[in-house]
């Protein structure tokens, strides 16, 4: 149950409170952002167990960093940057073992599960599947924007790409998805 004071607290204030030992502040923070972070991971790896595992890594990193956390940017920007780094780290380790594979190939098949198939018709299913089929960098740019509500500048910082590159990736991703939406209208 959320307390009113927590509802009104900013993410950054909650993080500071957690750093002082208030575990309820963390719970509030977690509840606020759990699903968005998880969806970002889930759509990127297309595997429930892996997404769960990465979700833990992200939030464990939040826990570990709480004492040194300084609110220099929005909390969500930092959080999604951590999530992105976890994905990249996972990808890098996978590549270490499978140098001929690309992360895109991991998620080449769209997720097909009852909940997904049962969304509100083909339109929804097709859109989600199309997001999962986007080339990796475009998908990251789109999901960081759509789930993380990050600006292009923030995405550029998080992904280590320059602003124009991110702009182009996002434009291309949106264009592909828009085309798909029009086909299903």
């Amino acid at each position, binding site marked *: 149950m959320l307390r009113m004071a927590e509802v009104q607290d900013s993410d950054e204030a909650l993080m500071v409170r957690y*750093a002082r030992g208030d575990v309820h502040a963390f719970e509030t923070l977690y509840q606020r952002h759990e699903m968005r972070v998880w969806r970002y991971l889930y759509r990127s790896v297309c595997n429930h167990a892996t997404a*769960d595992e990465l979700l833990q890594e992200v939030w464990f990193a939040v826990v570990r960093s709480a004492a040194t956390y300084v609110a220099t940017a929005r909390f969500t920007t930092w959080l999604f940057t951590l999530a992105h780094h976890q994905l990249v780290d996972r990808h890098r380790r996978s590549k270490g073992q499978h140098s001929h594979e690309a992360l895109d190939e991991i998620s080449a098949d769209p997720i097909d599960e009852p909940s997904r198939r049962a969304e*509100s018709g083909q339109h929804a299913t097709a859109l989600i599947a199309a997001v999962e089929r986007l080339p990796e960098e475009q998908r990251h740019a789109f999901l960081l924007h759509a789930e993380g509500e990050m600006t292009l500048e923030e995405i550029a910082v998080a992904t280590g790409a320059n602003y124009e590159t991110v702009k182009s990736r996002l434009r291309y991703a949106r264009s592909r998805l828009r085309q798909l939406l029009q086909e299903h209208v």
Partner: protein
Amino acid sequence: MTAPPPTPPEDLPDEVTAAYRRISALEHAHPGAQARAAILAEAARAARSGQRPRHGNTFGDWKWKAAASIGVIGLVGVLTSQIFHTSLTANKPAPVLASNAPARVAPAPESPQEVAEQPVPEAIHRAPTSSTQRAIVPANPRRQDNLVNASRSVAPSQALSPAAEADSGQNGAAGSAARAAPLAAARAALSPALSPNWAQGIHYFLIQPAHPSSPTAVSLGKVEVTEVFSYACPACDRFYPTVDKLRATLPANAEMTFIPAAFNQAEDWPMFQRAYYAAQALGIEQKTHDALFDAIWKTGELAILDPVTEQLKVPPPSLQDAAHWYAKAADVAAQTFVNAAASVGVENKTREADEFVRSAQVDQTPTLIVNGKYRLTPGSACAGDSRCPDAEQRVINLVLYLVQRESAAESPAAKRSE
């Protein structure tokens, strides 16, 4: 005072982003309960102990790594002795273990059945150095062929997945044959595609404490299989044919029951929960159960989504709307239905259902509960593999397996109280 700079158009959500967010918000896939529990527990532990590391490796981290290393050594030893033991006996499989498993080492199981029952930690334990520590992940039933075809798919994680181990075995880079062999045996033990074994903590979860009784009333001595669902949940709509098949497959000593959940108010679940219990009070819930799913998701008579915009209807279908639908579908007066829905009996049922959902730790629908003791979902039956090709049959098989276990007890009531 200067005005803030205008937001660049690229930063504004366009119609594609808006559509994606709308659809995403409606989706019913969630993080696993064990991941959530592990995160919150870790946050609480860190807050209590003040062990959040400042920079680099703290003493706390050092201790953790030392304990983990001892655990790794111990586990490799246990696995090696297990495979040695296995080769001398009857090729008994070993449990899936990963190198960051808790230092607590369980005794080696003595039979395949025990292997299946080997409790697997519900939480994936934290790996302080992610590149060196590995996590437990469910065996992936689709990847049983990866031992011979590792190049086709990348391991979903750094954990002991078949592909990762196959590669390390073939390349000789990360592990010796001595290490790979017991791990391969361990994987085989829990790979449902290769054996009928189901693992607690992976395919199903123990409800602790076991729920003493559900709001339904099954006959004494019967094993109860409960589906927690909502008519307004699209995944439940897709799942109801499986439930029908499951119900037809259950043995005579088992009984299928239903608990409507109400935890998604945005999608009108509380109204549909009340409607279910009103229909039950009037004795028409069985006759209308599948038809109501169709009315929401196929014919659209009680749709919660606008067919054009695919957004939630405002206002959502009301109890009056449902009453009119039931009036047509089951020949009861709409007012009779409304009166039943407002009755104290139905009110109590909804409260009991909410309590059951909470205490059984149901965090998604559809969820199946066997005798108030075991919880599973279509996702868990597939060990989290969202591309599981035979999900329906796996759910049915797993439920039948758990029913069989409960049937073996002298008394289901006694089993529940364990």
